[in-house]
Each structure stands twice: as C-alpha cells, then as structure tokens.
C-alpha cells in the first residue's frame, strides 16, 4: 500500500474538488437546462470578495457570508435578467452565453484586483487528519464532505420533492411546463440562486485549495465539465464519482514518468473514453427527438 495509498489519498483530495464542481454544474443543468460556463467565474468572484473581506480584518464567517451572497446574487441576477431571454434557444447557445458572463466577471475581477499572487486562508486549514501517511487539512476534508452531502441531498431533492420535480419539468420542456402551471420564474430563480450558493462554496474551497487566481478559477470549469460529461449532464451521482475517479487517475499518472506532464489532460481523456465505452454497440438510429 504505502506509496500507492498516498497517491490514492492525494487523488481523492483533488477529485473531491472536481466532484464538487461537477455536481453544482449538473444540478443547474437539470433544473434549468443551462450548462453554466460562468460557474467558475462566479465562485472566483465570491472567493476574491471573501479574501478582500479578510484583508479588511473581518472574521472568517463574514467572509463566507460575503462570498455566498455574491455567488447567489450573481447567479440569480443572470437567471432572472438574462436566462429568460435565451430560454427558447438551443442548450449550446445557452451554454456559450454563460461564457460571455464568465468573461465579463473575469474582466471585472482583474480590474478590481490587480493580478498578483494571493492566498485565501481559512480556519479549517489549521486542523489536519492523516490518511495512509498523507496529511490533509480540514478544508480538503470539508470539500469531500460537501461533495458527498450535496450529491446525496440533491439526488433526494430532485426525485422526491415537489420543487425538485418542478425543476425537472422545467428542464424537460419549458413551454409545456408553463402550460402545465409550473411557476417558472420562481423555480428558476430558486435554482439559479441555489446554484450560485454552491458556486460560492466551491469557489471558496477552490480559492483555498487550488489557488486564489481569478483566471485559474474561472477556467477550471472546463476540466470540471469533463465530470459532467461522464455523468451525461444528468446524473449527480455518476458525476460525483467521476470527479473522484478522475482525480485518482490524474494522481496515479504521476507515477509513470513519460505521461506525467500530460496528466492534467486526464479529465478530458477519461471523459472521452468513458463516453465511447457507453456508446459502444449503440445502433445509429433515431438520435434525438425524431
């Protein structure tokens, strides 16, 4: 075990981050039919604000509060002001529109905070636990726990509750959902708000564990999308485990020197391979709604 155990734990540590991010993306997609490329940027702005609040000397709970409020406000703002105007477009167009939002947020962050190395330090960084000889801080464990909680909670929420059903209704066919009397605006606002909340949490944890850099946090959404591809954009559970698996694979690739420099590509490669495997043997017929 020894060394392998360490790589396993190390992989889990990163995988937990992919998983948490992926789950947030899938959730929003299932509730509103939008894949949010701005997810990373929203989290980044939340994390940067939290850093600023800490710089001003306020205690950490205030920083968390600021981060989450900003995440919710940004996400909800988009959901209320912009998303309805695009609701009749194809999913791809909805998705790329969010990239515009993300880029605007990134520009704003770079204007407000000059590019500079920064670090977000949270209280949980102080505690640590040891697995297989590798120590992990409380924040890292928190990321894993948050991923598990959100995955389990959301699975139940979407399939068992009325609000969850409303969200699924909406994502399936927005116009029909309206005809059936789904309070579209309300449900969407809630979904966007909650997704913004998750983006805030994710941004905060990423800001601490990955690096507090607006551009890095903004574009990390792309490898995270790999986990959602494995989860076929719908399965929260699969997305979660895909995130963990990708993290572990990435970590173990370190052991094979020729591939080590390419290991960051593992989310993409895993996603493509899994996909091809899932599609194997499928007949080419009736793709889509024929």
């Amino acid at each position, binding site marked *: 075990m020894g060394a392998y155990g360490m790589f396993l734990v190390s992989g889990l540590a990163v995988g937990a981050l992919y998983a948490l991010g992926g789950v947030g993306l899938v959730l929003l997609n299932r509730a509103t039919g939008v894949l949010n490329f701005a997810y990373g940027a929203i989290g980044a702005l939340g994390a940067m604000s939290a850093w600023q609040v800490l710089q001003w000397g306020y205690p950490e709970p205030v920083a968390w509060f600021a981060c989450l409020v900003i995440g919710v406000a940004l996400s909800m703002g988009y959901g209320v002001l912009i998303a309805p105007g695009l609701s009749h477009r194809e999913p791809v167009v909805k998705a*790329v529109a969010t*990239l*515009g939002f993300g880029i605007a947020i990134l520009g704003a962050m770079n204007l407000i905070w000059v590019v500079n190395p920064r670090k977000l330090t949270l209280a949980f960084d102080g505690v640590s636990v040891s697995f297989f000889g590798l120590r992990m801080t409380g924040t890292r464990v928190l990321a894993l726990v948050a991923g598990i909680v959100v995955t389990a909670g959301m699975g139940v929420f979407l399939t068992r509750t009325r609000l969850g059903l409303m969200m699924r209704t909406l994502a399936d066919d927005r116009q029909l959902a309206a005809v059936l009397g789904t309070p579209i605006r309300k449900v969407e606002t809630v979904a966007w708000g909650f997704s913004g909340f998750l983006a805030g949490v994710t941004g905060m944890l990423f800001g601490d564990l990955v690096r507090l850099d607006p551009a890095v946090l903004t574009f990390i959404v792309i*490898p995270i999308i790999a986990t959602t591809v494995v989860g076929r954009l719908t399965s929260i559970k699969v997305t979660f485990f895909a995130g963990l698996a990708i993290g572990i694979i990435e970590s173990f690739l370190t052991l094979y020197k020729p591939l080590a420099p390419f290991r960051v590509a593992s989310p993409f490669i895993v996603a493509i391979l899994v996909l091809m495997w899932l599609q194997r043997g499928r007949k080419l017929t009736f793709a889509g709604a024929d």
Partner: protein
Amino acid sequence: MEIATRMSRSNTGESRKFTPTTAWPLLAVLAVAIVLPMVAAALWLKVMTSVVIYALTAASIALLYRKLGQVSLAQVAFMGCGGWVALRLAYGAGLPFELNILAGGIIAAVVGMIFAYPALRMRGLYLALVTLMAAGGFGILINVIQFPNGGDGFLGFAVKSLSYMPRPWLAQSDEAYFRYCVGVAFLGFLLIQLHERGKPGRAWALIRRSEAAAMAVGINVTFYKIWGFALSGFLAGVAGGLLAGNLQMLDARSFPPAESVMIFALTIVGGAWHWYGAVIAALLYRFVPALLNDIGVSGDAAYIIFGAALIHALMTAPRGIAGQLTDLVSRLFGKKEASQ
C-alpha cells in the same frame, strides 16, 4: 384543381441566375483584397489578415452548425492541429507553402473524422462537450510538445534560437500575404458553397432534420456526417496553416479550449445562416479587440464589454448580426424576402 390554386400563392420561386445579388460578394472580396493593403496601416493589415483567417474558421463552424446542426467546440484546436502539421512539413520537408497548408488541412480533416465517430451517436450540447474535451486535451498536449520550430525528431521542437516558417514565395510581404489569405479563404468559402448547393447539402439538411428521415430516403448518414466533420476540420486546418504563415510560427498559448468556445459563440453572434456571418464573427473576434486595444481600452475592460456584448447579441439577434443586416437591407430596399 383547387389545391393548385391554393398552393400557387405561396410560390416564391427562387431564381438561380447570376444576379447582382450573387455577384456583389465576389466584387466586395476583390475590392477588399486590392484596396485594403494600399490604404491600411501595417497594424490593421495584420489585424485584417487574422480576420480573414478566422473567417475561414468561423465558416467551418457555421457549416457544421447550419447544415448538420452539430456544434464543434474544438475548431481552434483543429487550427492548431493543421498549423502543427504545416510547420512540421515546412521545416522537415521544405515543401511549398501550399502543400504544407493542404497537408495541415487534410490531417485536421482526418482528426475531424475521428471526432465524427462519437458524433455519429450524439448531438446537441452533449456532442459539443465531447469536442470541448478534445479541445481541452489538445491545449494541454500542445503546451508540452509545442509547435515545431526547426528542431530535430518527430516533434521538431527544440529550445533554441528562433527560425521562422517561410511564407509562399509569391506572398512574402504582409501586403501580399493578406491578399494570399483572402484568396485561400475565398476558395474555402467556394468549397462550402459547392457542397451546400449540391447533393451533400441536401443530405446534410435531411440529417439535421432527423437522421431517421435521412436514412429513410437512402442517405448514408454515417458517411455524410463524417464527411461534414472532415470538411469542417479541413477548413479549420487550412486556416491554422495560414495562421502559422502569418506569424511564421505558432505559440501554444493561442490554442486554449476557451478560444474554441469563444469563436463558436461569435459565429452564432455573427450569424451562421449567411456566408458573411463568418466574416462578422471574425471581425468581432480579432478586429474589435484590436480596435479597443488601439484606442486604449484596457484588456480587462475589453473583456467586460466583450462579454456583455456577446450576451446582448445572443439575446437580441436570434439569427445573428448577419440575419439582422439582411432583414434591414430587405426592409430598406423593400425587397420581398421569404417572410415565414
């Protein structure tokens, strides 16, 4: 018969004759190619060369989107792929420039075909994400292997003093190279037109409507889908070769996955339904930022403007800016367009 009379009202017979409307794009292209290098400052000539090159890429995206309803978020990566091959051959074999970019296009086409394989069973956002995965993988790969710069070995890269890819002997100067790019892009657009007007165009239109319906009329869906991706990859690959010739080198930093998403978004904003939508897309992608940079808007502020404008355009112009222009023109000149 009664249906005949009922139907005749909706007969908006299209004529296929060579009319001023079909001639003007050609004249416009010629005029731009001749006049622009005479009047534009060196900066703008460089910018417009980029615009022409990316117009070809945008056209390759629009082709897939319009005809097959497929979205590729890997088109900039295909450019990188074509550029890599063109550079490799330029250093390795010393072939004429044309052959290098042609080979770049063909290899990109082959890669495009490989990606058409998953596309055979997917569509929409999901397929788009698969291509995005490919673009992500390419971004990381190219960061490590870099573009050939005259080094040894298969990869042709070495950390060493620079050497530069030769340009076509007819087009050594920036002015001539701009005209050269216009020429190549024009041929690319022509190739697209030929496909769209003919048998592949009809086949793609049916596939886009429904694959089942396409099969039911005897179309080999597998073949035509792969062909569409190959053509699209080819055009992007050629554009990549042109880009390599423009800078006479390539840098891995030009090819992150987000750029592929961006140029797709701009293609939609420009308008995938008109050939000049691709030109508008390229202007938005390269000319507008250069303009903002030139008038002293900071890059970060430009990001904000750009992001907001992107969303605004997507919300207000469902058929892109080209669609709006067409509507405007037809309203101004009272031309009767198919108004359905």
